[in-house]
């Protein structure tokens, strides 16, 4: 399933400034296709802005984003999503006044007016949505409104919604943030399983224990650009990383 020669997600000289602050500053990064990549760095190092530039939520000032060999710089977020790049949000975003099932159904891929006028609750879509809800372990909540379930369950729901859109690459912004240890374990297992099925992951995370145990490749950000990258064990001992994190 994993093909190392396949072109994955790459950025070249990506830059985005807010006023005088260069949140992302000439970031040239290439993520390993078919692997679990982690993006780490101190608070304010530009990880989320980088995420937003890559997924089209923010238009970068300069630089390029290429995905599977195609230049997707400045494309609208839905086009990037349909190209196969799915994402979750920091602090988890769901559709609060829609049911859990409808939340997942919102991610369904369809094209053309006839397809889009098909009933949302058709057997095919429902079966797939239920399968994904069962996979993340919240199938018993399908009729609850999303605002009524717990934060941890909302995180799982968000992941199910992202999966419904059939992404090849999944970017997760702090999947373990604000989540209890048992659930972190479940999320880690899910990421490993999905990766084994051939999906690439790019994960922003502060939980170092999780990052080190889960990822194959780590990119360290500081002041808007990568300062180190490599296998978790190598990065952990890199003096530049220690300096950025600990200020020594």
């Amino acid at each position, binding site marked *: 399933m994993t093909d190392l020669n396949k072109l994955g997600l790459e950025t070249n000289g990506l830059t985005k400034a807010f006023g005088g602050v260069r949140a992302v500053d000439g970031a040239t990064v290439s993520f390993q296709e078919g692997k679990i990549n982690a993006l780490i760095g101190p608070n304010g190092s530009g990880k989320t802005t980088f995420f937003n530039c890559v*997924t089209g*939520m923010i238009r970068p000032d300069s630089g390029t984003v290429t995905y599977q060999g195609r230049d997707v710089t400045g494309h*609208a*977020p*839905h086009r990037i*999503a*349909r190209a196969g790049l*799915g*994402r979750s*949000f920091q602090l988890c*975003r*769901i*559709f*609060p*006044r*829609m049911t859990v099932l*409808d939340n997942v*159904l*919102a*991610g*369904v*891929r*369809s094209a053309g007016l006839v*397809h*889009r*006028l*098909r*009933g*949302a*609750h058709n057997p095919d*879509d429902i079966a797939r949505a239920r399968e994904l809800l069962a996979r993340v372990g*919240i199938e*018993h*909540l399908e*009729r*609850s409104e999303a605002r*009524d*379930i*717990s934060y941890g*369950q909302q995180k799982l729901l968000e992941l199910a*919604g*992202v999966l*419904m*859109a059939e992404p090849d690459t999944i970017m997760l912004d702090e999947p373990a943030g604000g989540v209890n*240890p*048992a659930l*972190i*374990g*479940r999320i*880690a*297992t899910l990421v490993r399983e999905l990766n084994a099925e051939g999906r690439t992951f790019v994960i922003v995370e502060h939980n170092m*224990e*999780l990052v080190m*145990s*889960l990822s194959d490749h780590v990119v360290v950000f500081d002041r808007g650009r990568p300062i180190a990258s490599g296998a978790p064990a190598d990065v952990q001992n890199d003096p530049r990383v220690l300096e950025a994190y600990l200020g020594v």
Partner: protein
Amino acid sequence: MLSASRHKTATHQAGRTSQGRSVLLTKLVVAAVLLGLVLAFPALAPDPFILSVGVVIASYAALAVAWNFVGGLTGYISLGHAAYSGLGGYGTALLVTEAGVNPWVSMVVAAVLVGLAAVPIGIASLRVRGASFVIVSIALVLILLLVAQSWAEVTGGSNGLRVPRPFGTDVLRPEQHERFFYLFVALTLVALVLWWVIDRSRLGTGLKAIREDEDKAQALGVPTFAYKLVVFVVSAFMTAMAGGMYALWFGSLDPIFQFSILTGSYLVLMSLLGGVRSLLGPVVGAVIVGYAVEFFKNQYGDSQMHLVALGVLLALVVLFMPDGVIPWVSAQLGRFRPGDTSIREVDAAQLAEERKALEEAKS
């Protein structure tokens, strides 16, 4: 253990579908009874005045359902929908008087033209969200008011524009009211069917996702701008149809009433009151508000007290029934039903499994 829990889920789902069927049956019976009452209204109305109030309410219902394509599905609140009903009305009137086109053809042609005009208007105004969108929608109707008032050689300005009766002079007023009542009810039904089709479709799910969190919807691959534009144009078209029909019924147009910010506010009030997320919400709202407007006008005569009374009504709705009457009533009924719980029962085996996963993640 696993097969037992699977069995439980299966029976649970079977129970759910039979329950769903009985709910559907109840809904159909209620809808049939309501429709029967609506259709019997002209025969039951004691005098032509009450009948004319019925026509006004039916026209409000058509307008409110048309408004709800944008307001309910996408959450974009337009206060300026009078722009489209007004343009539909003037378009119809001018096609009849200036070009001598058949009144019903005029109504449809005018609505199609308004729908086409809504494309560039939507492209410009749907770029902004929330309060900014509201302000843009108000600006549009105010501009049209000024244009219609000052361009007197076409619109008749403040002197008004007379529209000939579509049924000829031998059809008397009460008979005309009755025909238009049925026409407005038919238009409302068409709008309801269209809304229902969109609401239950994949398009509808995408639109509701936009209402809840537009950025998130886009990140999931929903082409948000195109989706919004589609319902915006449908809404403008249906609103213009209702506006054109109103022009044919009322027989005279004055810019101050056609391009009124008040009309737009009524539509918002009706939809909020009934419930923007339910199919019949705007209709229920139109009946309550439409009746209240006529009642207060009757009570307070020529004073502006009816507006104060409506303002109070709007405040009460926002305070106590923010989701509207229909969701409020079903929530009250729902209190007597067994509810779903978000607490999942976990047995010892599942707990052990989760612990194992946790250990694996740590190692």
